């Protein structure tokens, strides 16, 4: 990052940093019974815009403000909703829109900390994209602020979408009820064909927008993509890895970037089971999925769909009689469908194949429900911190080529 770019970045970050200086934490503003939860979006890039689309489907939520340091992005995002106030300064937004109850933070990873802490200090519930931050220090600072805000009845939800995904919740039930039996190995990939670049007409702005390709700020594919998948394994296994090895290289996008476009990580768990995780930005074959291989069955999860592949000698279970099945070459997958029993009784089982909404919708709906019903977040600040710390270790392993130790006891202590 050159001096000009750094100044630009700091100036942009400053808009968020102003409020973070607020010394005290305000209590949560009550949500009027029957009234929607008033939400402000902070960060109106691609993920923020996607959040607006999904929030519009949730009757109990109402987006009242959008904040982005880039006025044109904020304006464009505002087109995706109705009647919102647009701001380029967080302080101004909180000052002028008093009815905000909660915020959705979708800024770049390295710009999560300031708005997260500022929002909690202002008495707002927080839904924060993951990874929570790009450094260990920032992760712990966010976690600490979220813990402190619990005393004021503030919800902090980490955007770990797998935990809200109906198919994943169903599958976790199968997994934990011993349907796969002895866990042999775990695999996952996140493959897509994309540059990971964001265009801009202004070079300084372009540099700021492309923080994912900036070696000083980015935590690479393990950080940005792996974090969501690592958490699925943490959540299913109720366990964390003890070490991670990694490698990476630039296989396709030879455009001067220093962040690998293709990586492999090998995460070891204390029980000897290993997770093999691959990611590339050069090929999209089979996209993003996670696989649990067991002695009785394999479970494959692909975010909007899931399947169980049973071994021939695995015992039959009653529900399989009604199951919908799909053929994959020589393997037959039992489609994992949320509310399958209910749908089967209505003769609508096939309509339940695949999620009707993107996974983001369910995570945001859970956040809104947590706030309005006074329930804990489905994915807490601690969950987000743990997943992010594992992702940071994986990124370090790829960058250094060394095996990085992880202390599960420390993660559990969060």
């Amino acid at each position: 990052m050159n001096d000009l770019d750094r100044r630009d970045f700091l100036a942009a970050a400053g808009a968020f940093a102003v409020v973070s200086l607020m010394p005290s934490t305000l209590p949560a503003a009550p949500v009027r019974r029957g009234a929607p939860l008033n939400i402000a979006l902070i960060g109106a890039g691609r993920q923020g815009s996607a959040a607006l689309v999904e929030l519009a489907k949730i009757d109990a939520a109402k987006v009242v403000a959008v904040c982005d340091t880039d006025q044109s992005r904020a304006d464009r995002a505002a087109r995706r909703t109705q009647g919102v106030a647009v701001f380029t300064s967080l302080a101004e937004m909180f000052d002028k829109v008093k009815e905000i109850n909660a915020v959705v933070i979708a800024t770049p990873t390295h710009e999560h900390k300031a708005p997260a802490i500022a929002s909690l200090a202002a008495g707002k519930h927080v839904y924060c994209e993951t990874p929570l931050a790009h450094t260990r220090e920032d992760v712990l600072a966010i976690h600490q602020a979220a813990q402190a805000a619990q005393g004021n009845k503030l919800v902090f939800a980490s955007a770990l979408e797998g935990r809200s995904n109906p198919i994943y919740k169903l599958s976790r039930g199968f997994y934990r009820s011993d349907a796969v039996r002895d866990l042999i190995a775990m695999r996952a990939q996140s493959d897509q064909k994309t540059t990971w670049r964001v265009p801009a007409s202004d070079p300084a702005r372009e540099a700021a927008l492309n923080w994912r390709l900036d070696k000083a700020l980015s935590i690479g594919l393990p950080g940005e993509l792996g974090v969501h998948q690592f958490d699925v394994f943490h959540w299913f296994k109720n366990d964390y890895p003890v070490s991670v090895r990694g490698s990476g290289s630039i296989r396709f996008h030879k455009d001067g970037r220093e962040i690998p476009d293709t990586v492999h990580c090998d995460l070891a768990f204390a029980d000897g089971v290993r997770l093999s995780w691959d990611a590339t930005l050069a090929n999209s074959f089979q996209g993003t999925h996670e696989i649990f291989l067991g002695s009785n069955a394999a479970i494959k999860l692909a975010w909007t769909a899931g399947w169980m592949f049973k071994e021939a000698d695995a015992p039959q279970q009653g529900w399989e009689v009604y199951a919908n099945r799909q053929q994959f070459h020589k393997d037959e997958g039992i489609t994992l469908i949320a509310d399958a029993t209910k749908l089967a009784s209505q003769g609508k089982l096939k309509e339940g194949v695949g999620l009707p909404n993107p996974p983001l919708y369910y995570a945001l709906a859970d956040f809104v429900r947590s706030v309005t019903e006074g329930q804990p977040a489905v994915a807490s600040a601690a969950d987000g911190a743990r997943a992010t710390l594992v992702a940071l270790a994986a990124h370090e392993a790829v960058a250094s080529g060394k095996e990085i130790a992880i202390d599960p006891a420390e993660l559990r202590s969060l």
Partner: protein
Amino acid sequence: MQRVSAAGESLRLACDAMGTRFECVLFGADQTRLRAAAEAAFAEIESLSARWSYFASGSMVFRINREAAERPVALDAETRDILRLALDVWRDSRSCFDITIAPLMRHWGFRVAPLPERGEKSLLQAQEPLSERGATPAIWGSQHLLLEETACTLAFAHPGIEIDLGAIAKGWAIDRAAEVLREAGVAAALLHGGTSSVVAIGSPPHSPRGWPVRLGPFDGSPVVHLRDSALGISAPHGRTANIAGSSVGHVIDPRTGAPTGWAGGSTLPSPAREDSRDSTFAACVHTSAAIADAWSTALLVRGSARGAALPHGLATAVRLSDTWTYSDSFAQHLSPELAS
């Protein structure tokens, strides 16, 4: 603003959205920036596709169709804007363009059965002649759409009404995509959705007059040159259904409820019916692909631009019975020998 030079290598990218293929050709010296710009443009298209899908149960359009007969449905500003445009074209074309014809598409076999999630019965029995239902269409017609622009809501006047933005959404999407490309400094690009909606930014290096685009697959089809403008094309060929032994194209005349090229069973004459073969064709050039897209459909149904309250700046071309009729402004886009 830093511009991406129009000179240099071309880059071609594609994505699947809205049930069709979107393609983009870009020229510029910096391939890295071009690719990033095209990806951002496609992301815009994919986002709109997800929101406005008629079929996806998580989409805004699906929600409107499920709930708008019971209560006003809150819209985002962009959905309100595309609905307002669709209603403008419906009114100005005298009902030759209509976003409420989905039940008719199913009736004529251009679509699969009614969506089971809504638990509805077929609104039109498959073999029921439209003439037996009386002259007043009860299950389609944009007069049944109650758009409250200030409140930003849409309601249906009665159950059974549905909207489908398919005839205008592709144009809208490539307008937004072109906006993304321009903001990224792209100076020369051609973007199309399903070959029926086209947006041109600047000119390719080899053709200063604009991007040459052939209108239709026929021998001797005219070629238009597009430069910072958009083209919408409509023709009944492509998707067809077999009706009473005849292959009929998928464009419905909202005034009659029948396909434009079908001769029986409707209550009103259809201007395009006399020429039901694949040669019927309408094209519009405008600065907005959404407007060009919607009006090309309206003109195909009308069979002529005459008498229509055309929007300012709309250039039109209609082919009927192997004869093209161009507006003066459309002729400016043609190669000189055709224009004369």
